[in-house]
């Protein structure tokens, strides 16, 4: 087996990008001013009075309209609205629907994302094409609706059409230049298409960035990706200092500041802000806390935090820590469904499912899913080649190696060397396999990536065990003390799995 590629390097609070129907009405899309004054009710009271005198449907209709406009504080006039529902007049269906909606308190239409497993997500590609057709029709009808343009961009990105997605999000941004939601969608896309500098420029050109904690958080994150200081760092810090820990609008800003201080080496400050993040976290800041907490120490994430809707990534990270691989895979499926354009979600999931559980069928599915949106992603292609080779499809694996991966990675890259080793082992060429794994190990050590180096060793042991070579147990005994030092949960799981296999082989040989 070659070395499954990891995708969990530096994480920042880059904004989430969800369909507009999923985020409508959530904290991210709300204003940050004081509560509005109540809508005056005197006009409604006048119509109710008129209706009480006349009991006519005409006056009842005015009561209905007034009541909907006044909103929740409208406590009068329900009898008039009931009259409209029961009237003998043949009313248009929308009137009755509005009357029933008002009485039942039905309002708005927040879409909840369906939970789809991997197979369903892969099959959903056709559904996405149909969804795009519907969005196009909606845009023909209402071309000034920026949310439809943003949704279309997201669908295009999730189908791998990055240039198209960029064009579409620019249209949305032009239609709603000061919208927080659209700006955050645009930032997420530009980071995805590796144009973080443009994302930084976009945020700096918005008037509201300097006083909007959500945009300040995005600005800090993007500045970190670009590697340049944020123009608004001082403002962000001052705002965060003044803000209440309870204010959910600031959770991502606290998280971004925490990450900034972690990157600067100021662990104490990083910890301080991470504590604040966890008071009222968003799913994104919770995931950031999951990523950051083991790196800075001294942070306990309360169990109650995991009840936040759509916190798939945070839960996946949590289950990884607990080595609960079944739940990890389940939450990773949710994460992929939540961010269908992302490379990190399927990259991470395919790596961990392969290393920790050895379930190459699941690894293959995660890769195939991720490759829909990112057909040239090296990590996913590498992991797919590993899955092919592991499942006996050597030709497919070699094909990917020769035609795709060698164009992405240099010949002396750890992944190329690992894949050469794996295909050699699986073709029965043990000597070459050993040679390539040794080279892969040395390349990883040279990069000072001890996890990768440990993986090279583990993968070699696995191949020796699969091939049942005479030296398999010796390799295991030689490598075990080195790999034991690596604390990554999936590495420990793999080591455990190989230990069982080695014991089995040892027993088998004793009996023979």
């Amino acid at each position, binding site marked *: 087996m070659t070395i499954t590629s990891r995708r969990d390097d530096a994480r920042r609070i880059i904004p989430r990008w969800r369909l507009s129907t999923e985020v409508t009405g959530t904290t991210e899309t709300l204003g940050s001013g004081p509560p509005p004054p109540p809508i005056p009710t005197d006009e409604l009271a006048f119509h109710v009075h008129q209706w009480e005198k006349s009991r006519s449907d005409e006056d009842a209709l005015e009561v209905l309209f007034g009541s*909907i*406009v006044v909103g929740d504080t409208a406590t009068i006039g329900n009898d008039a609205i009931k009259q409209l529902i029961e009237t003998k007049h043949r009313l248009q269906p929308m009137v009755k629907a509005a009357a029933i909606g008002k009485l039942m308190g039905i309002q708005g239409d927040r879409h909840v994302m369906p939970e789809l497993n991997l197979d369903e997500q892969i099959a959903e590609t056709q559904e996405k094409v149909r969804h795009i057709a519907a969005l196009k029709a909606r845009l023909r009808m209402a071309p000034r609706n920026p949310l439809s343009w943003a949704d279309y961009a997201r669908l295009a990105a999730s189908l791998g059409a990055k240039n198209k997605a960029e064009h579409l999000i620019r249209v949305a941004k032009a239609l709603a230049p000061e*919208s927080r939601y659209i700006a955050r969608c645009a930032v997420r896309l530009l980071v995805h298409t590796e144009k973080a500098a443009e994302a930084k420029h976009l945020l700096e050109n918005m008037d509201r960035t300097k006083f909007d904690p959500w945009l300040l958080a995005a600005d800090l994150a993007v500045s970190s990706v670009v590697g340049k200081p944020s123009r608004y760092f001082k403002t962000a810090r001052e705002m965060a200092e003044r803000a209440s820990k309870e204010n959910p609008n600031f959770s991502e800003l606290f998280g971004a500041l925490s990450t900034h201080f972690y990157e600067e080496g100021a662990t104490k400050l990083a910890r301080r802000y991470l504590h604040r993040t966890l008071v009222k976290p968003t799913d994104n800041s919770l995931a950031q806390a999951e990523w950051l907490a083991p790196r800075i120490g001294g942070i306990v994430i309360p169990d109650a935090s995991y009840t936040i809707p759509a916190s798939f990534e945070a839960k996946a990270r949590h289950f990884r820590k607990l080595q609960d691989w079944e739940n990890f895979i389940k939450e990773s499926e949710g994460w992929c469904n939540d961010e269908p354009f992302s490379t990190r979600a399927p990259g991470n999931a395919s790596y961990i499912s392969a290393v920790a559980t050895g379930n190459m069928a699941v690894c293959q599915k995660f890769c195939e899913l991720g490759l829909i949106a990112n057909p040239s992603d090296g990590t996913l292609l590498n992991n797919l080649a590993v899955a092919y080779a592991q499942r006996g499809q050597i030709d497919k694996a070699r094909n990917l190696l020769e035609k795709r991966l060698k164009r992405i990675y240099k010949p002396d890259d750890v992944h190329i060397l690992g894949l050469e080793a794996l295909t050699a082992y699986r073709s029965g060429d043990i000597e070459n396999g050993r040679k390539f794994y040794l080279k892969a190990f040395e390349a990883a050590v040279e990069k000072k990536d001890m996890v990768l180096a440990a993986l090279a060793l583990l993968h070699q042991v696995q191949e020796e065990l699969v091939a049942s070579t005479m030296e398999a147990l010796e390799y295991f005994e030689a490598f075990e003390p080195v790999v034991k030092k690596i604390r990554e949960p999936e590495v420990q799981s793999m080591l455990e799995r190989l230990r069982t296999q080695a014991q089995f082989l040892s027993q088998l040989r004793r009996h023979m």
Partner: protein
Amino acid sequence: MNQENVKGAQMHNPAHDLLGLSLEGGWKVVEPIERYQGQTGGAFSVGYVVVNEQGKRAYLKAMDYSRAFQSADPARALEPLVNAFNFERDLLMECRHMSRVVTALTDGVIRLDGLPVQYLILELADSDARRQMFLQQFDDAWSLRALHQVAVGLDQLHKKMIAHQDLKPSNVLIFEQKQSKVGDLGRSIKDGRLSPHEGLNFPGALAYSPPEYLYRNRPEDWMVRRFGSDIYLLGSLLHFFYTGVALTPALGNQLDPNHKWDKWNGTFAEILPFLYAAFTNVREEFLKNCHSEDCEELDRLLSYLCDPDPYKRGHPGNKAINVPYGLDRFVSRFDFLATRAEMRLSIAAKKK
């Protein structure tokens, strides 16, 4: 007069005593009316039917100042009432020759027990568009013709720089032979003249208000603020004719509760994307419920008239010539659609 005397005194109200009286110009007060079509908020006036010597019936609106006299400071209380009456009277006189606006036939004053009662005599309508809906007398041809005639009325007002500001189904008055006119100029505003309601962002009925005012946003430009509202109200009327629901409540129903005006704590610019999404949903519902053969065109006109952004309202053709709130294109389109619908109706009738 001290306040205790005021409480004890029962104010004589001559505006309520006009029944049976003869007025200048041969008008005779024949019948009191509880509420005149289109006079939904007439708390300071009393209505009667009057008949002249030729048998023409009309509506008399007598001003009732009794409440003002009973207040602690009658001079202050009277001032807005008198201003409003004078403004409406002047406006009605100015609109006298408008074919699609309900105008004053005459005005005058009658003295009862030495107390003056000022009155206006207006055209008397048979019905209004709201009642028409409940009487099931709506068809495509009727709706389109009414929209055409209302658009003409609004255009006539706009040409005199008068913004109606309170166009709603109950203010579309129906006369004989299905003729529609715009009624109730009580909330109107005229550019260049001090209007009693000029200080209000939107003087019309709240339930029909364009969304920007509900979100506490006041466009600075007079034309945007006044004509922009009027054309929204025309679009709202179009929506009402085909769905039975005014546009603002329909929008309210499509918004997430946290985004609705009674909860929203951000700026209008921030809510606009979500308003556009809600408006798109409203239009989809409109298309589902519309019973006309010209639904798609009506939907397009609705989108021009009721764009959630007041600066973007208006026909694109008019925007190109820098008259964004011009109504002439809407007038001709509604006329064309109405004529076509009428022809369809007559062909269908002949076939029967």
